[in-house]
């Protein structure tokens, strides 16, 4: 997901999400949360490529990408990873970029 127009990138993402929706009817339940956070990561990557992501969004994507594959190996660790992602969301709630797109000093 690194080339093409924004519309094409979003089309691919929506295709991924729609196909995931269908496949999850039959797949292991734990893949549901995995596809959700992976879709979030893919969305942030699109925003990064378009130059409209923020530090906090990129931080969340990096954390998602670093831990998402634990779904394949350790259900408990994957659940703990999801908790940490939600914690990170809370941690960054007040770090919205200022009007004009500049990140606040607390952003990483």
């Amino acid at each position, binding site marked *: 997901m690194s080339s093409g127009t924004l519309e094409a990138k979003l089309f691919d993402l929506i295709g991924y999400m729609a196909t995931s929706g*269908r496949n999850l009817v039959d797949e292991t339940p734990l*893949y549901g949360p995995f596809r959700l956070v992976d879709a979030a990561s893919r969305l942030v990557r699109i925003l990064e490529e378009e130059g409209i992501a923020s530090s906090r969004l990129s931080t969340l994507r990096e954390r998602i990408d670093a831990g998402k594959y634990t779904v*394949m190996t350790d259900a408990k660790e994957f659940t703990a990873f999801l908790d940490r992602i939600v914690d990170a969301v809370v941690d960054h709630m007040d770090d919205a970029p200022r009007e004009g797109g500049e990140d606040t000093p607390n952003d990483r």
Partner: protein
Amino acid sequence: MELYEAIHGRRSVRRFKPDPIERDILERVINAAVWAPSGGNAQTWRFVIVTETGRIAKLRTVSPGLLGDPPVVVAVCQDLDAAYDKGSTLGETFLAPVDAAMATQNLILAAYAEGLGSCVIASFHANAVGRLLGLPERVLPMLLVSVGCPDETPQPPWRRTEGVVHYEAFHE
């Protein structure tokens, strides 16, 4: 490469370098798949090798399990009409997926022996993949395999042994 080294060293790779794979290497890997056993020596598997970037991108859109940007995706398919002709209902419903799996195991071990990474993917929409690859109605994709130069070295996952292997008879 020694067989046990390949069995123990292979990992599911989901990050690939963009380097293309040479045709002769691909042919060796696919040839290893063709040398897998099959029920009644049916050999009703069909392999579609995809290297076009645009087609791989389309496959990825309808294949949630296809992660990363592999330069090659192999669709391991089965001709269900041929499988039925060779093995009746058992051939179509049981041997076809089992044979595809055995061929896939050969494929990924051969890929590893060639220094390549791979990942076996079952999470895809079969009809959508069939349309994108121009598969006849009765040729179904059983598995997708991403192949490429690995850009990661995953840690070996946990392997369960207790309660898995039983000698002589099953013991609770």
